[in-house]
C-alpha cells in the first residue's frame, strides 16, 4: 500500500522456505501491497528484472543461489529498488555485509507480521524520499545547465553586438573624430573586453564544474601547448616592452591533458605577468622534468604579490590591487587555472616578493607511452 493515489507498492520476496513466503504474502497483502514470491534465487533475479518491484526481501541463505549475489545484482541493475535481507540471528555479520553491498535494512528470523509490515513501511518511505531527492537534484542540475546556456547566449550576444558597433564606429568615422573621442572609444572597448573576458571565464568555470571537460584529455606534448601560449602573448609583451624569454630543456615530455584548457592556463598566467610587470621588465619561462613530473616555471620581474594576499590569489574575484586601471582582470583567471590544474591532477605553486617579482610553478605528471 502506498499513500500516493491508489498506487500499490510492489514487493518481491525471495526465500527458499515456502512457509516464510506464505507468511510474508499474507501479512503484506493484508496491508494492500502487491506481492510476488519465489523460492528460487535465479528465478527471483529474473522476476525482478521483468517486474522492477519497489522493494525486495532476499533470504541470505538459500540452497540454489547466494542471497548476497542477488543483492549485488539487484542493487546494480534495478534503479531505485530498496533491498532488505532476511537472515537468521546467527548471521548478523552477513547482514552487515549485505548492507555494504546495497541492502537498506535487514529482517531477522523469526519475525511477526507486524515486524515485516513495519520494516516494509519504513523501506517504502525511504524509497519515496530517495526518489523525491533524486528528482530535486535533477531539477537543480537542469536549472543550472539552462542558466549556463542563458548566460552564454543572452548575455554574450548583446555584448558582442555592442563590441561590433564600436568596431564599426571606428571604421565609419575614421578621421572625423577628435583624439579625445577616439580615446573614449578606446576606453569603452577595453571595458567591454573586460566584461567579455569575465563572461568567458565564468562559463569556463561553470563547464568545469558540470564535468564536461575530462573526456577531451589525450596524450599531448607539453612544449607545443606552451609554445601556443607564448605565441599568443608575444605581441602583447612587445607592446608593453616586456621581454618574454623561454628556455625549454625537454621538448618531448608528454602529459595527459586537454589542449585548449591548458593553452588557457598558460595564457592566463603569462597574461597576468604582463599586467604586473612594468615596461623594461622580463618574463622568463622554463620547463624542466624529472622521472615523474614536468615542471613549468613562469617568473616575472613585476610588482609582486604581498605575502598576506598570496594565499587568496586562486579565490574567485580576488584581486591584488594595482596602481593602474589596465591591471583589472576578471578576477576569475587564476581560479580557472587552479581548477584546470586540479582536473589534470597537477599542482600549482606561487612564490612572490614585493618589488622583485612573482614565480608560478606548475607541475604535471609525466606520461610514458609504451
Amino acid at each position, binding site marked *: 500500500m502506498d499513500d500516493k493515489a491508489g498506487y500499490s507498492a510492489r514487493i518481491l520476496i525471495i526465500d527458499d522456505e515456502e512457509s516464510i513466503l506464505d507468511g510474508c504474502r499474507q501479512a503484506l497483502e493484508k496491508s494492500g501491497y502487491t506481492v510476488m514470491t519465489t523460492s528460487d534465487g535465479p528465478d527471483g533475479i529474473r522476476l525482478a528484472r521483468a517486474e522492477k518491484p519497489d522493494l525486495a526481501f532476499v533470504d541470505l541463505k538459500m540452497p540454489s543461489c547466494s542471497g548476497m549475489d542477488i543483492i549485488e545484482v539487484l542493487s546494480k541493475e534495478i534503479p531505485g529498488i530498496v533491498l532488505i535481507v532476511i537472515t537468521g540471528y546467527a548471521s548478523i555479520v552477513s547482514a552487515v555485509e549485505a548492507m555494504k553491498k546495497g541492502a537498506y535494512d535487514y529482517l531477522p528470523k523469526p519475525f511477526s507480521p507486524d515486524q515485516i509490515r513495519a520494516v516494509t513501511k519504513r523501506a517504502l518511505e525511504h524509497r519515496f524520499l530517495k526518489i523525491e531527492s533524486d528528482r530535486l537534484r535533477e531539477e537543480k542540475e537542469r536549472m543550472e545547465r539552462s542558466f549556463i546556456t542563458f548566460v552564454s547566449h543572452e548575455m554574450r550576444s548583446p555584448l558582442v553586438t555592442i563590441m561590433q558597433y564600436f568596431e564599426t564606429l571606428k571604421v565609419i568615422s575614421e578621421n572625423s573624430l577628435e583624439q579625445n573621442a577616439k580615446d573614449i572609444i578606446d576606453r569603452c572597448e577595453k571595458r567591454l573586453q573586460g566584461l567579455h573576458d569575465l563572461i568567458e571565464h565564468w562559463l*569556463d568555470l561553470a563547464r568545469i564544474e558540470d564535468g564536461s571537460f575530462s573526456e577531451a584529455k589525450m596524450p599531448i606534448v607539453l612544449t607545443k601547448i606552451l609554445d601556443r601560449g607564448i605565441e599568443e602573448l608575444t605581441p602583447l609583451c612587445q607592446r608593453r616592452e616586456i621581454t618574454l624569454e623561454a628556455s625549454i630543456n625537454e621538448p618531448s615530455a608528454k602529459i595527459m591533458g586537454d589542449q585548449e584548457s591548458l593553452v588557457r592556463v598558460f595564457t592566463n598566467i603569462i597574461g597576468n605577468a604582463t599586467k604586473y610587470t612594468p615596461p623594461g621588465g622580463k618574463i622568463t619561462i622554463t620547463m624542466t622534468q624529472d622521472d615523474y613530473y614536468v615542471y613549468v616555471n613562469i617568473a616575472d620581474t613585476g610588482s609582486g604579490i604581498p605575502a598576506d594576499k598570496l594565499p587568496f590569489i586562486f579565490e574567485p574575484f580576488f584581486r591584488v590591487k594595482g596602481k593602474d586601471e589596465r591591471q583589472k582582470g576578471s578576477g576569475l583567471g587564476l581560479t580557472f587555472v587552479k581548477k584546470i590544474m586540479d582536473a589534470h591532477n597537477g599542482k600549482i605553486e606561487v612564490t612572490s616578493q614585493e618589488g622583485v617579482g612573482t614565480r608560478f610553478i606548475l607541475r604535471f605528471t609525466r606520461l610514458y607511452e609504451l
Partner: protein
Amino acid sequence: MDAKKKVLLIDDDKDFLLATKLILEKGGYEVFLAEDGKAGVDMAKSLSPDIAIIDMMMETWSEGFNVVSKLRTSDTGKKIPLIMLSAVDLQGPYQSFEPPDELPTVDLVLHKPIKAVELLKFVGQLLR
C-alpha cells in the same frame, strides 16, 4: 568599373547585421540582410550573392548549420564561398553545445566580434 560584389549577411540580431553591413559597405560591397535562416536561403536564390556570411546560432543553437546545408545543396550556394560566424569558440575547451556529427563545409569560421580589418581582409581573399 566593376559592379560591386554582393554580400549576403544572415543573422537574427538586427544590430549585428547593421554594424557588419556598415563595415562591408565601407569596404565597397553591396550588402543584403536576412534576419532568419529561411529568408537567407530564399535571398541566396533570388539575389545570387558572391559570398554569404551566416551566424551559427539563430533561432536554434545550430540554425546556421541548417542554412549552410541548404545553401550547399542549392545551385547558387554550391559555388560561392560561405563564412560562418560564431560567438562561441568552436575550438574552445568546453562547449555546452554539441555540433552535428557532420559539419557542413564552410570556407571560414570567424568569431564575433570581428575586427573590421579582418572581416574585409577575409572577404576580399575569398572573393579573389
